């Protein structure tokens, strides 16, 4: 039952990810990715990570991708125009690389998927899905990382501000 839901959501995610890549209109691409991420959030819930799922929606769908849309609207970027100069090497080599890479990656993941070590201190499904347990870990064992990320976010904030600011006319 749950596997059915998962596979359905996963197929949806893959489908819209594909649409995102194929589409010519950047706005449509962003929207496809929103749907894809939404489906992924559903997958996350089924993988016992409801908090991450909600964060996925809030941060990715609700903030990052809205920001993309916002920028697209602000810049009013149109559809991709056909490029006059063909770059056959890039395209051919790129396509080849993608195919080889996908084959290798899937092959490798198939091989590792069956070999999972059993952890002694495994947490049960209830514990895994509990946001409070996650929060406790974040604020104890991973406090330093947490603070480091907060500093990083501040730096990114300042950086984005400086980059996107218009040069003020003196």
């Amino acid at each position, binding site marked *: 039952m749950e596997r059915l839901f998962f596979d359905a959501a996963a197929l949806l995610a893959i489908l819209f990810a594909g649409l995102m890549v194929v589409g010519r209109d950047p706005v449509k691409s962003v929207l496809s990715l929103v749907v894809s991420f939404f489906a992924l959030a559903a997958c996350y819930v089924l993988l016992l990570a409801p908090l991450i799922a909600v964060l996925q929606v809030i941060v990715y769908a609700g903030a990052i991708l809205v920001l993309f849309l916002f920028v697209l609207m602000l810049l009013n970027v149109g559809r991709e125009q056909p490029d006059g100069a063909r770059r056959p090497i*890039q395209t051919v*080599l*790129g396509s080849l*690389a993608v195919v*080889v*890479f996908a084959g*290798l*990656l899937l*092959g*490798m993941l198939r*091989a590792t998927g069956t070999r999972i070590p059993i952890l002694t201190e495994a947490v049960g499904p209830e514990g895994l899905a509990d946001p409070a347990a996650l929060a406790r870990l974040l604020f104890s064992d991973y406090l330093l990382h947490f603070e480091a990320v907060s500093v990083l976010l501040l730096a990114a904030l300042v950086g984005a501000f400086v980059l996107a600011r218009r040069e003020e006319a003196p």
Partner: protein
Amino acid sequence: MTFPLPLWVLPLIPLAGFAVNSLLGTRLGKSFVSAVGVGAAGLVTLAAYSRLLPFFGGSHATVIEPVANWITIANFSIDISFRLDPLSALMLSFVTFVGFLIHVYAIGYMHGDHATDAGYARFFAYLNLFLFAMLTLVLAESFLLMFVGWEGVGLCSYLLVGYYFDREYAAAAGRKAFVVNRIGDYGFLLGMFGIFAAFGSLNYTEVFRKAAEQPAQFGPVLPVICLCLFIGAMGKSAQVPLYVWLPDAMAGPTPVSALIHAATMVTAGVYMVARCNVLFRLAPDVMLFVAVIGCFTALFAGTIAIAQNDLKKVLAYSTISQLGYMFLACGVGAFPVGMFHVMTHACFKACLFLGAGSVMHSMSDDLDIRHMGGLKAKMPITYLTFLAATLAIAGIPPFAGFFSKDAILSSSFEAPGLGKLLWFIGLFTAGLTAFYMFRIVSLTFYGDFRGTKEQAHHLHESPSSMTFPLIVLGLLSVVAGWLGLPAVFGEHANVIGPFLAPVIAPIAGHEAAHEAMPHATEWLLMAVSVAVAASGLYLAYNWYAKEGGRTPARLAASYPGVYALVADKYRIDELYDALFVRPFAWLARALWKVVDVLVIDGVLNAAAFLVELAGDFLRFLQTGNVRNYALTFFLGLIALLVFVVGAM
């Protein structure tokens, strides 16, 4: 605030003063700077005495106060911890008090020095920093923490000697003090390594306990360790052959000379040797070496002092000479006596230096005693205190120096082996000391003024901020010796000996075979030393005050070679210059011209050229198109994946 104050508060008070004055001093003006600087010194004195008074009155039990773990590497662990025992208590008592007095003095002195606001703040900041380092040195409970203080006082000494860094000779003197001290510090470091290798610890308590319990086990290594430690002490306490920096260090402001180069820092070596008495007593050969070096230094510096004409230089050589006495005492095993002399010396030598500073002020910064004379009438307070301190250093009873110096002489007289010879040299040096000290008193304060008209017009007594410390220290020069009256004055006349006795820990297998000297011998020794001192004194007064220096001039004329040699301080500086400084300078030049310029730079330039050459061709890989980069990146990723999959 809890009472009793924890020991770690003490070093922090002057450190706070340093922080305020160094960070804000230039903005806040002189009066604020002096308030902070002197306030910190006064506060630390009060705080120290709040601990010391109960300690002196109470059980004298050693207190060890750990503060925090400092370094932990594998099974080596050092705490920051402080120790209050009779030895450190004695040091603490005069380091803080004399330090405070000299801070007070410095207000008046530096005001007259036409210092800029920045210079004034810098001066007081460094003085406070020095107090911090000195307290750390004194209160430390481990060799490592002591080394922190040891280096700290060295740094402050360097900074303060070079206070007038815009004058070439002061900067050079600071550099010299630093370099010569480095040699000694290297010895100290080696000694510390040796201690750690032998004992596996650097804490006093543990090291001394192990050494005292199993003397046989550590016997073979201790001479080496003690020798290294003593080399450290030689550097810091200006003993032959590492004494050359101290006379030059007089280039610093006079309060600095008084505080660092007379009363406190230079005695750190003696303190360290006394602190390690357990180790030293297990190395009798090194003890003898210490005694001989001390005795020789005392004589050597005393002879130089005779022929010097710079007031502070004479005092500097006399300091070296007195430090020699202290090491003599330690070398013959009389550690408490050595520490007693450290204490009395701090009082009267600080007084002498401050007096010299006062004279220098009055003389418009002229220190040549040939230009002085008859200052007695113009500067009565300076004269009286200077006289008291002179009598103290000359060893005239009942002044302080008499008792401590006499105790040193009688200890060396009692010592086996070379004892009698050491006593005789010490006695001779005592006479010498009385002579050269009274020579400067006579030339400075008696007779007629020999300086210029302007100087004569300018002569005045110093302000009260300068005379107050003088008076206090002058009084101390009189009474400080009464703490250590010899045994002939009664069973309990000697306070300081029993007080310091616990520091001399008993060693397994070593009997404290001390037989009291017969009273008659003791009286006799005292009489002899008083007689020698008095005759030196009389001679100097007669030659310089009454005759106006005709006899010495005649003597100098009849032995011109000897006189020139002595007046040139035996040309030791020139000798060192030829032996060490020039060869090293030449070597450094060679390394620079050949190794650095040719070899290292050559290799680097060749490498840079190759890189540039490669860049000329490889730069075409940089197409500027992000997608090319991404593609390359992914191709690399594929290679990596192939590698990983292949490994699986």
